[in-house]
């Protein structure tokens, strides 16, 4: 059998590469109108010949080693040595695209050019002499339209033919001094390498490419020798080696195109430029942006249709929660299982544990899908890249880049896609910072907590909900500024450079594909984590040991010989409650664990086992916090009362009473501290999973979680201690500690940036 052919697909970001890849392989990758969507390489088999493997490399501008994408693409081309490179070239931006082509032809791998978007060039009246271009570059060119699928088959066949027999030799040469140095370098360092690769290595050595110097492990005396050649060329051409090469490439391309590319409408503003005149206008940019964001939010998360709003997402989510999740999944499954005479504990596990937990998450799917659809639409038409540009100025002030805005916006719906959205931030420091702070935004699942606290203790004041958003935003801003001044995050945010794609009408197929891809990964991930976590929580609340016997606490309490009066008195004493309030749950594993753990929250004003247990179960899903309150505050939906409302309506009195009791009469303050802690501490497991995936490092994941919990604790501590002092319940030690923490926080906030000197232009 023949050796399997491998072809690499390379090209500039946003040149239609992924679209071509989909057309060539029949796969369904989401195409982003946003540079840098492909960071990893993807593989597929060609439709025209299933024996040929096509690798989609990340979009790159050059083969230098400075960005993640370039390193990935370069390593693949050098180390895996594909049989041919299919270089997609955007004909509407020939000069810059051919800059990469000149580098690809130096690799000693046959190159075939797929000249994309020729239809647009022709439409504008420009003329490109493709035949001559092919001759000058020394490689075959196939005109294609990736979007329409024209010429795609021919391009694939040309690439296969080249892979089998072709050879591409670089046609361009550099100026005298450079060629002189290159000849020397080739002679002393790379003559042992395959002939077709020598030139590329010599060029990289000339550019002092660190990675190549490392790879070839050149002895220091040889290195010193070639350094002389490089220095001589640099002196003669009065520039550094890298710039010399870059400039000469562009000059070569410019000269070549003079006879080949005839432009008709020179200096005309394109449609995109005209749109940008308005959309990124100094005065209108922010209002337009605010309006767009308002619409996105109103449609996906706002007031539902039929309730004075326009949100399709909320409408569907309400339906999913009430009908699908509540009635069908939980109650329906219970009825069916009981009908089958399934053991009660198993019914409990499946209906109340797994299905209720999964249902709670699935309920958010419609809102997520609408949100993703809107975001994909904004991305596809080209506006998303402009948002990053507009917001950059504001976000830079607290150490983040404009690209951090989208993750945070998405985070108000759900932290998981929010964290995932941080992927488009190239700079590692900025990305990590964004991942760490995104979940400070109050997500949809935190809203019930806010509702409960506002309702139970603050008479339903809307200020509490508003304050929650302010706390979230303030936490991001404060964290951004503080972290920026630590060693780990020190330095300027990465300079903002981003190619702005041309605006185009939405391609619905692509948008729907992107929406589904993101939605499905949300369902899948949330689903798996939630199933496991729900089982664990169900087990912890249902089982425990009563008077030395282990089992389901409800059953054990029904047995008078186990739950004797003397024993109940003991429990009442342990939990510090009257005997008639002792419930089976007080003996559950959860209560046993939460009781000692509540010490941690004593300094925050809510050191009682119930809020502690609720906070801990909040890690599973933040909705669980209120659900848990419902269970713990003895709300029994078998009493003929209605089902517990989302915000825990029916237990407000009991919650308020209890908070007042254990906080020594400062119930409101304790509840507010409880809310702050729950808003800011580590997100749910599913979001932590997303953090881990995006950080791609155990150390950084733990750091993020530790920081979030620590920050939440400190803020709640300060609020509780200071608040209590004002309310006349001062605890001297607590107050002093709170003031010290506040001072440290302010000091970190206002101390000057260490790097201040480095920012100045030399």
């Amino acid at each position, binding site marked *: 059998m023949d050796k399997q052919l491998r072809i690499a697909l390379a090209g500039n970001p946003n040149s239609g590469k992924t679209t071509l890849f989909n057309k060539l392989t029949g796969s369904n990758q989401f195409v982003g109108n946003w540079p840098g969507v492909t960071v990893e390489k993807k593989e597929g088999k060609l439709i025209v010949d299933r024996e040929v493997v096509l690798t989609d490399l990340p979009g790159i501008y050059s083969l230098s080693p400075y960005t993640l994408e370039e390193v990935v693409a370069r390593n693949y081309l050098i180390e895996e040595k594909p049989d041919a490179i299919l270089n997609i070239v955007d004909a509407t931006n020939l000069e810059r695209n051919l800059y990469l082509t000149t580098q690809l032809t130096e690799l000693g791998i046959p190159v075939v050019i797929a000249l994309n978007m020729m239809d647009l060039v022709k439409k504008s009246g420009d003329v490109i002499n493709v035949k001559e271009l092919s001759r000058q570059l020394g490689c075959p060119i196939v005109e294609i339209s990736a979007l329409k699928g024209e010429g795609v088959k021919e391009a694939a066949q040309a690439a296969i033919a080249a892979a089998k027999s072709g050879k591409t030799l670089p046609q361009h040469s550099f100026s005298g001094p450079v060629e002189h140095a290159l000849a020397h370098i080739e002679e002393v360092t790379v003559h042992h390498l395959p002939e077709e690769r020598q030139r590329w290595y010599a060029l990289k050595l000339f550019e002092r490419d660190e990675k190549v110097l490392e790879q070839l492990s050149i002895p220091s005396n040889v290195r010193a020798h070639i350094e002389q050649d490089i220095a001589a060329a640099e002196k003669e051409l009065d520039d550094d080696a890298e710039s010399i090469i870059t*400039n000469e490439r562009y000059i070569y391309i410019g000269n070549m195109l003079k006879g080949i590319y005839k432009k008709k409408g020179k200096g005309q503003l394109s449609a995109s430029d005209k749109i940008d*005149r308005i959309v990124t206008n100094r005065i209108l940019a922010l209002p337009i942006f605010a309006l767009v964001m308002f619409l996105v939010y109103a449609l996906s998360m706002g007031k539902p249709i039929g309730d004075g709003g326009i949100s399709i997402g909320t409408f569907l989510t309400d339906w999913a929660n009430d009908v699908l999740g509540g009635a069908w999944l939980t109650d329906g499954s219970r009825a069916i299982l009981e009908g089958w005479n399934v053991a009660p504990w198993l019914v409990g596990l499946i209906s109340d544990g797994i299905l209720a937990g999964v249902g709670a998450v699935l309920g958010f799917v419609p809102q997520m899908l609408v949100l993703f659809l809107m975001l994909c639409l904004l991305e596809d038409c080209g506006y998303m890249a402009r948002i990053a540009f507009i917001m950059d*100025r504001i976000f830079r002030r607290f150490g983040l880049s404009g690209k951090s805005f989208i993750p945070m916006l998405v985070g108000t719906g759900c932290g998981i896609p929010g964290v995932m959205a941080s992927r488009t931030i190239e700079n590692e420091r900025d990305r990590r910072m964004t991942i760490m702070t995104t979940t400070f935004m109050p997500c949809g699942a935190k809203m019930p907590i806010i509702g409960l606290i506002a309702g139970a203790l603050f008479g339903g004041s809307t200020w509490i909900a508003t304050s929650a958003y302010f706390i979230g935003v303030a936490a991001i801003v404060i964290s951004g500024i503080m972290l920026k001044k630590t060693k780990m995050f020190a330095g300027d945010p990465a*300079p903002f450079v*981003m190619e702005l794609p041309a605006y185009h009408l939405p391609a619905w197929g692509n948008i729907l594909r992107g929406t589904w891809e993101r939605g499905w990964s949300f369902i899948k991930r949330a689903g798996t984590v939630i199933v496991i976590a729900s089982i664990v929580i169900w087990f912890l609340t249902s089982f425990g040991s009563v008077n030395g016997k282990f089992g389901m606490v409800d059953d054990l309490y029904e047995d008078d010989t186990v739950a004797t009066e003397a024993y109940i008195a003991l429990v009442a004493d342990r939990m510090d409650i009257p005997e008639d309030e002792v419930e089976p749950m007080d003996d559950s594993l959860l209560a046993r664990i939460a009781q000692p753990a509540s010490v941690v929250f004593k300094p925050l004003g809510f050191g009682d086992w119930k809020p502690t247990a609720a906070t801990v179960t909040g890690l599973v899903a933040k909705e669980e916090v209120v659900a848990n309150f419902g269970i713990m505050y003895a709300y029994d939906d078998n009493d003929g009362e209605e089902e517990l409302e989302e915000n825990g309506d029916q237990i407000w009195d009991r919650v308020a009473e209890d908070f007042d009791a254990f906080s020594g009469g400062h119930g409101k303050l304790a509840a507010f501290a409880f809310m702050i802690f729950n808003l800011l501490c580590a997100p749910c497991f599913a979001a932590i999973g997303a953090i881990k995936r995006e950080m791609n490092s155990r150390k950084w994941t733990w750091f993020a979680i530790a920081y979030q919990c620590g920050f939440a604790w400190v803020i709640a501590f300060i609020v509780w201690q200071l608040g209590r002092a004002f309310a006349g319940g001062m605890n001297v030690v607590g107050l002093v500690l709170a003031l010290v923490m506040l001072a440290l926080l302010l000091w970190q906030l206002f101390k000057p940036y260490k790097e201040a000197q480095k920012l100045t232009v030399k």
Partner: protein
Amino acid sequence: MMPLILAAAGEEAVIRRVGGSPEMKKHLEDLGFTVGGAVTVLNEVGGNLIVKIKESRVAINKEMASKIMV
């Protein structure tokens, strides 16, 4: 010579020098900001620029724009 941030919007200018750290410089040059090349400022928002370079539109912030001399 003046930094690109001072160039008048809508007028084509010629790049004289590209500064900044080696990485930044190389990245700018890869994008087409090379000495002798033409650049047009299309839009300015608070010092951040949208410029036309070669045939594409690139957004760059103030810090970077101040290192490109025209």
